[in-house]
């Protein structure tokens, strides 16, 4: 675990009410500390006093939505699993956190791996699975070894394994390491990878709930989503639903990165404005600088200009503004950096990470990168603007099997919408107002 001084985000006096409530406690990653705090009491309660249906009802009542990016209602997702179908069912944990600007799952796993394991056990029991696979990105060496130790501790103490708490129920949690591919955050690509293939998204239906990992019914949930379950079982779904807004219940983790004084992983009740997060918790702009733009939910979420800092984190409000809460990764950029250059960097990312299965995404991303390169080099700028506009439209609106292409299109479209002036300057006079210098590619 990170030494306390290294903890950047909610902990100790600044801990949030749900996920980070115990963060900052020494050795929280160890089983004895976690149990002393009250850990695994929810799992015991769920397994020995509740039925799977009752657990699912509590989660439905909580209003919890998936925290990986798509925001699908968790309880509803659980109810798609055909509980009575004979044979193996799986829970697959999406710990492939790789949306640019997002580090909160790492923060949760490194500080409290048992909270995730407890959540996995609850979810597995609720959907009738005896085996769970944590698909963890290959670069997460420390979370991987911490989870390995935590599983061993919890199994030895009887919280996992066979005949847990004398109930006759078994659950086995295993780890599977990714090998560096953003696309694996997409749940069907993740399943392909787990099955030992190139990670290319599947066409749906069938949905993973019916035909998921190794052809069996599979529940896929994100690390943060699962880590929230122990609190919900302990306090009840209704109590959780008191937090947040009508459409977005509870709290969630935000990673604030880029041009702020205190980058970190912060737990905040949903519905509060981004200003509280960026200027409050993260300390606002660096001395002498002014914030210009922020990505509200990972690089895939269309940008908002700093003038819109009072926008709240409510799902519906973000949707009305044409963006989303996404992965909770809030990237902040100030007036010293060029928006066009930032968009160019992100398009390089989407082009590189395209799995190549769908043509618009495979071709469009690379095409956009070349247009950005020419725009930034001052080569026939107006033509590049027109081209970028066509490419972004071609990347969007369900032309691909997954959202990667759409995301690339949104970066172009939203930065062009809000910062047309910076694009025009590059296109028409080869000047970058952000740096005051002549643009150089």
């Amino acid at each position, binding site marked *: 675990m990170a030494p306390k001084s*290294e903890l*950047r*985000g909610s902990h100790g006096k600044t801990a949030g009410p749900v996920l980070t409530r115990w963060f900052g406690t020494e050795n929280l990653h160890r089983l004895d500390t976690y149990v002393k705090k009250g850990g695994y009491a929810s799992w015991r309660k769920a397994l020995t006093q509740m039925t799977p249906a009752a657990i699912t009802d509590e989660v439905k009542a909580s209003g919890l939505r998936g925290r990986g990016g798509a925001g699908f209602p968790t309880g509803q997702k659980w109810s798609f699993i055909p509980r009575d179908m004979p044979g*193996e069912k799986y829970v697959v944990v999406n710990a492939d*956190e*790789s*949306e*640019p*600007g*997002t*580090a909160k*799952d*790492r*923060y949760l796993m490194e500080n409290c791996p048992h909270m995730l394991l407890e959540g996995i056990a609850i979810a597995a029991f609720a959907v009738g699975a005896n085996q769970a696979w944590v698909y963890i*990105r*290959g*670069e*997460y*060496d*420390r979370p991987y070894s911490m989870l390995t130790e935590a599983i061993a501790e919890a199994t030895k103490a009887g919280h996992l394994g066979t005949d847990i708490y004398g109930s006759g129920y078994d659950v086995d949690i*295993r780890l*599977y*390491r*990714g*090998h*560096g*591919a*953003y696309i694996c955050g997409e749940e069907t690509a993740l399943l392909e*990878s*787990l*099955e*030992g*293939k*190139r*990670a290319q998204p599947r066409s749906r239906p069938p949905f993973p709930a019916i035909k998921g*990992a*190794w052809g*069996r019914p599979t529940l896929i949930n994100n690390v943060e989503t699962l880590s929230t379950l122990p609190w919900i079982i302990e306090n009840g779904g209704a109590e959780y639903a008191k937090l947040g807004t009508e459409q977005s219940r509870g709290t969630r983790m935000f*990673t*604030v*990165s*880029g*041009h702020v004084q205190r*980058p*970190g*992983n912060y737990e905040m009740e949903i519905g509060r404005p981004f200003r509280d997060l960026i200027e409050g918790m993260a300390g606002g702009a660096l001395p002498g600088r002014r914030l210009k733009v922020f990505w509200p939910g990972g*690089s895939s979420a269309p940008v908002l200009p700093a003038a819109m800092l009072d926008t709240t984190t409510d799902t519906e409000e973000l949707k009305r503004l044409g963006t989303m809460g996404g992965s909770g*990764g809030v*990237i902040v*950029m100030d007036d010293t*950096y060029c928006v066009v250059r*930032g968009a160019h*960097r*992100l398009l390089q*990312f989407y082009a*590189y*990470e395209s*799995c190549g299965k769908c043509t618009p995404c495979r071709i469009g991303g690379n095409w956009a990168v070349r247009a950005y390169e020419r725009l930034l080099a001052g080569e026939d700028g107006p033509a590049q603007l027109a081209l970028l506009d066509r490419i972004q439209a071609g990347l969007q609106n369900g032309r691909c099997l997954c959202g990667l292409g759409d995301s690339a299109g949104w970066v172009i479209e939203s930065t062009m919408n809000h910062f047309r002036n910076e694009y025009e300057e590059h296109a028409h006079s080869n000047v970058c107002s952000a740096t005051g210098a002549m643009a150089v590619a």
Partner: protein
Amino acid sequence: MSTLSEHLLREIRELPAKFPQLRSAVMPALDLAQEEVGHLTPEAMSEVAAALNLDPGYVEGVATFYTLFHTGPIGKHRFYVCTNLSCALRGANEIHGHIKARIGVEGPEEVSADGLFSVEPVECLGACEYAPMLRLDHAYHYDLTIEKVDALIEARRGAKV
């Protein structure tokens, strides 16, 4: 005479038992091969394929899809420098450029003359609150400065002798 050692091949043949289906063993197997050989040569991939009863082309297809598999030589210590936006906003490109200059390479395919180092700019590594950051020898290094990077290089040069 095979590229992979006998005991490694035995270990690879035992991997499928850990998974519901055999194919899931391919990436853990490639991990073992890469660790032993240094990178995934065509021979190493063929031997992995044979050990798992898979088509060599299939195994190569998997190996070439993922960033963490290398089909060409890499340094004993490879820097994976995050250059995505959150890190770029805090100086990642300067850090990446400095490492290239210090180890004397121009791109990710090159290895330093002493064989010790290579460097690759990579996408977001999920530690954005510590930007700029990198991964080296299975560990993350945070809040990078030119001095910190120099120290990482020197420590590994010193360890060679």
